[in-house]
């Protein structure tokens, strides 16, 4: 085992250790431990038998294995008070292991420590100092501080160095006692013994960090510190302190640390250490780690004080050299340091960009992480293209725990510095293809918004996404964006010719196949399937031959188990059957989404599920159906004839917002009936009512209220005096070209027989050119299964004069 004649081993201790180690199971080990602890306890109770230190040592071993040993605390106290050195030694060790300042027993050793601090034997003093510095409570520190100060001044080096670190502990525990040690700390700097010097430097660092005034006073020591350092750096070989050619690297690093603290924010002090730092930086041998440790500390100091620019450049260059070092530890710390200064010394760090980017390929995960951080910080408008190539390459092979961070860093960089829209879209698509599973939720709406804004690229984008979809439908974010685009720009996809990509023939069936594959795949999340279903529906107005296929897909999903999908399918079915005349309008091309507009955050108006908008997460199809007839009366042109009457649809986004916000307020997640019922149009009493229509038992009256010089609100009220109920009751309106029209949602769509309930609907008009106001209203309903339609023209409005003013 050991060849050196160390002190004789503790046989009882080693026997016990052997016994424990030979236990084959955890259970067996516990048995042995229990027996041993019982024996130990018995021994504690016995009188002094010369084996006490071995006994306590056994207990400490058991404690290290993780078993409870608090019953040994008092024994530690007793042992510390023993006159025997061997017992004191183990006693103090036990105290450091089993006691901390929170235990009551720790107070009991204060007296022993006090006595041992002035023991005639320095090794006993040493035990007390070590223990005090390890676990001294605030009271003990206060009590013994004067004694420590005495030892700092008048003892041998062996004791002084320990007393210095004791003082450090005391000052950390009781800040006010710092003042006590300032004089002693100052004078210790003239000691020659390295241990004492090191302790003194540590103590001064602690005093300066705690008290800015003390720091001011210690600034005067800078020349002394510089002298000491010079001695270490330029002196010849010193066997006692040499480590691979560096003389006492530990002391050098500590002094450099103190210099850093003293030179920070102070020109004078920084100036006086400038030459020394340059000397250390150039003279220190960097072939071994220990030399690099000193260089590293030097660099940190140079960068933290007010050093002159030449020295700063020297420091950054050292870091640059570190980046090329074979030792990955050195590469790692180089990058952490460069990261800290990439803001303040950006240009200096940029010079090493190539090396940093190479570190993206390092084997070590920590180095890779650092390289990623730095690379992202170094991206600028001038290097965006080349940097992005490297970052995308990195993304394709980077460790999984870094992917989310890399993806979001890439998105940020792309957003800030994208040289073109096409580049931006390509980059985002690339990320989705490579790491779609790791991107944040808002990536999907962000990318969609970007795509809608790049109108010249719609054809290119949809082709690219279609191709990506064919290759891989597992990346949900990519699939969602692809479905959305195919739905939205399906017409461009089918047209085939696209300037930016190779022409490829995509048939209607191809496109529908792709969407259906997504719909049916077990890899698709519910949200993704929602995207796919809506996209399929949208295609019904963009294709010509295969609408029936879409109809059947939609009707199949009408009985889907997933409630969300079922809801949509049912609504889309309704769009096919009852509201077919509106389908084109409902599904028409989206306007460009403005960033940060309400339409943007609410997602698409055609009813995609947007995960992060809970209040708007209601049955999206329905409110739209209620709103759309109000706005999109474009096809009335055909129906009503009369070329001078065109409509003024409000922007789809506007309408959606007002509709959604109204509905959201009242009915978050409510069902159709609530939505229909919950919307209360404002009553316009006591405005005069005029009968505008009366046929087949159905009457329509209207009243008006002037809102402004050009604004007018018309309320239409329908009633059914016949004997049969009417369903699917809707009103549509058209006005002269220059008049703006906005129809609010009707109160309902059923008119029960014998006038038991009415339907009201408000129409908001704005007549800026003050033309002659006329309105054509078309009435539609279903009576006993048969649809019915009629039209009436309203030429005069109550409350306005003949000219409609």
């Amino acid at each position, binding site marked *: *085992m*050991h*060849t*050196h004649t*160390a*002190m004789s*081993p503790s046989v009882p*201790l*080693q026997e016990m*250790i052997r016994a424990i180690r030979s236990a084959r199971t955890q259970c067996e080990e516990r048995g042995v431990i229990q027996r041993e602890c019982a024996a130990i306890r018995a021994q504690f109770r016995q009188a002094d038998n*010369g084996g006490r230190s071995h006994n306590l*040592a056994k207990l*400490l071993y058991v404690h*290290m*294995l*993780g078993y409870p040993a608090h019953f040994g605390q008092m024994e530690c106290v007793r042992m510390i008070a023993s006159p*025997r*050195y*061997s017992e004191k*030694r183990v006693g103090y*060790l036990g105290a450091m292991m089993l006691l*901390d300042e*929170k235990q009551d027993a720790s107070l009991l050793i204060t007296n022993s420590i006090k006595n041992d601090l002035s023991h005639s034997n320095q*090794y006993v003093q*040493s035990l007390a*100092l*070590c223990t005090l*510095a*390890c*676990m001294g409570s605030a009271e003990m520190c206060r009590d013994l501080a004067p004694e420590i100060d005495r030892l700092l001044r008048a003892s041998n080096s*062996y004791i002084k*160095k*320990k007393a210095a*670190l*004791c003082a*450090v502990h005391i000052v*950390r*525990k009781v800040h006010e006692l710092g003042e006590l040690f300032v004089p002693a700390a100052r004078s210790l700097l003239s000691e020659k013994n*390295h*241990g004492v010097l*090191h302790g003194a430097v540590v103590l001064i660092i602690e005093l300066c960090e705690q008290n800015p005034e003390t720091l001011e006073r210690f600034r005067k020591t800078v020349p002394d510190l510089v002298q000491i350092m010079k001695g270490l750096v330029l002196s010849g070989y010193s066997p*006692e*302190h040499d480590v691979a050619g560096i003389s*006492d*690297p*530990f*002391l050098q690093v500590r002094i450099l*640390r103190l210099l850093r603290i003293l030179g920070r924010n102070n020109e004078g002090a920084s100036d006086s250490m400038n030459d020394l730092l340059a000397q250390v930086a150039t003279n220190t041998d960097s072939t071994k*780690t*220990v030399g690099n*440790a000193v260089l*590293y*500390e030097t660099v940190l100091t140079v960068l933290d004080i007010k050093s002159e620019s030449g020295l700063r450049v020297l420091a950054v260059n050292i870091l640059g050299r570190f980046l090329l070092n074979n030792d*990955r*530890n*050195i590469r790692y*710390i180089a990058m952490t340091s460069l990261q800290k200064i990439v803001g303040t010394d950006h240009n200096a760090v940029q010079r090493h960009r190539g090396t940093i980017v190479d570190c993206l390929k390092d084997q*070590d*995960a*920590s180095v890779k992480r650092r390289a990623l951080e730095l690379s992202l910080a170094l991206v600028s408008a001038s290097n965006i293209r080349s940097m992005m190539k490297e970052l995308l390459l990195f993304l394709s092979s980077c460790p999984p725990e870094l992917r989310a961070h890399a993806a979001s860093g890439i998105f940020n960089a792309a957003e800030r510095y994208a040289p073109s829209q096409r580049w931006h879209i390509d980059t985002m698509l690339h990320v989705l293809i490579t790491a779609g599973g790791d991107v944040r939720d808002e990536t999907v709406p962000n990318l969609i918004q970007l795509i809608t804004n790049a109108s010249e690229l719609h054809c290119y984008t949809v082709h690219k996404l279609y191709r990506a979809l064919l290759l891989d439908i597992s990346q949900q974010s990519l699939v969602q964006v692809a479905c959305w685009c195919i739905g939205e720009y399906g017409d461009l996809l089918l047209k085939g010719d696209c300037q930016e990509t190779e022409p490829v023939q995509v048939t209607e069936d191809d496109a529908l196949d792709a969407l259906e594959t997504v719909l049916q795949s077990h890899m698709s999340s519910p949200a993704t399937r929602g995207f796919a279903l809506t996209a399929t529906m949208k295609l019904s107005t963009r294709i010509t031959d295969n609408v029936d296929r879409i109809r059947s897909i939609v009707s199949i999903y009408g009985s889907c188990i997933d409630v969300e999908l079922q809801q949509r399918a049912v609504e889309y079915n309704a769009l096919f059957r009852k509201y077919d005349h509106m389908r084109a309008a409902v599904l028409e091309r989206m306007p460009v989404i403005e960033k940060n507009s309400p339409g943007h955050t609410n997602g698409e108006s055609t009813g995609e599920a947007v995960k992060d908008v809970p209040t708007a997460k209601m049955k999206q199809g329905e409110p739209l159906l209620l709103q759309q007839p109000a706005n999109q009366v474009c096809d009335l042109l055909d129906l009503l004839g009369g070329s001078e009457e065109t409509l003024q649809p409000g922007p789809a986004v506007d309408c959606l917002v007002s509709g959604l916000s109204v509905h959201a307020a009242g009915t978050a997640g409510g069902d159709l009936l609530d939505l229909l019922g919950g919307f209360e149009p404002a009553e316009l009493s006591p405005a005069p009512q005029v009968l505008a229509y009366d046929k087949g038992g159905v009457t329509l009256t209207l009243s008006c209220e002037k809102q402004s010089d050009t604004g007018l609100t018309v309320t239409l009220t329908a009633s059914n005096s016949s004997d049969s109920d009417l369903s699917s009751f809707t009103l549509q309106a058209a006005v002269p070209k220059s008049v703006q029209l906005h129809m609010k949602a009707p109160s309902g769509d059923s008119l029960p027989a014998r006038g038991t309930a009415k339907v009201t609907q408000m129409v908001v008009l704005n007549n800026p050119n003050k033309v002659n106001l006329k309105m054509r209203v078309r009435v539609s309903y279903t009576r006993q299964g048969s649809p019915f339609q009629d039209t009436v023209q309203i030429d005069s409005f109550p409350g306005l004069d003949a000219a409609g003013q």
Partner: protein
Amino acid sequence: MTHSMRFLLLFSRQGKLRLQKWFTPMSEREKKKIIRDMTTMVLARQPRSCNFLHWKDLKVIYKRYASLYFCLAIENQENELIALEVIHRYVELLDKYFGNVCELDIIFNFEKAYFILDEFLIGGEIQETSKQMVNRSIEASDMLQETMEEYMSKPAF
């Protein structure tokens, strides 16, 4: 209260603790948790990784010597490279004392491993930068122990 070093742990490749030195006061529960965390983190490291880890607000410097992992936690602003030298210095001291030190030496003479450590570090700081000085102190303390024991085992008149 900050110390340059927060704790030093030695453990085997199976995660068995061989030495624990805590430089700031901590409850038993906290210590147990830290030991669990450190052993898990360090043992999971790939062979050719760098020797530095981040854990909470600390840097953890670790190095494997034969079958033992040395794990030293330092403050965030401390110098990692010199921390590696601290670990290495301790290993050298153990090696000098035990002569070609191996894990078994530290298991069967754990208290001596602590005594040596306490001559090298105090309160989370280096107390002696000279290898020879530390060795001499340990030898002298051992001698003192022997002498006292001899003295005590002599029959009294």
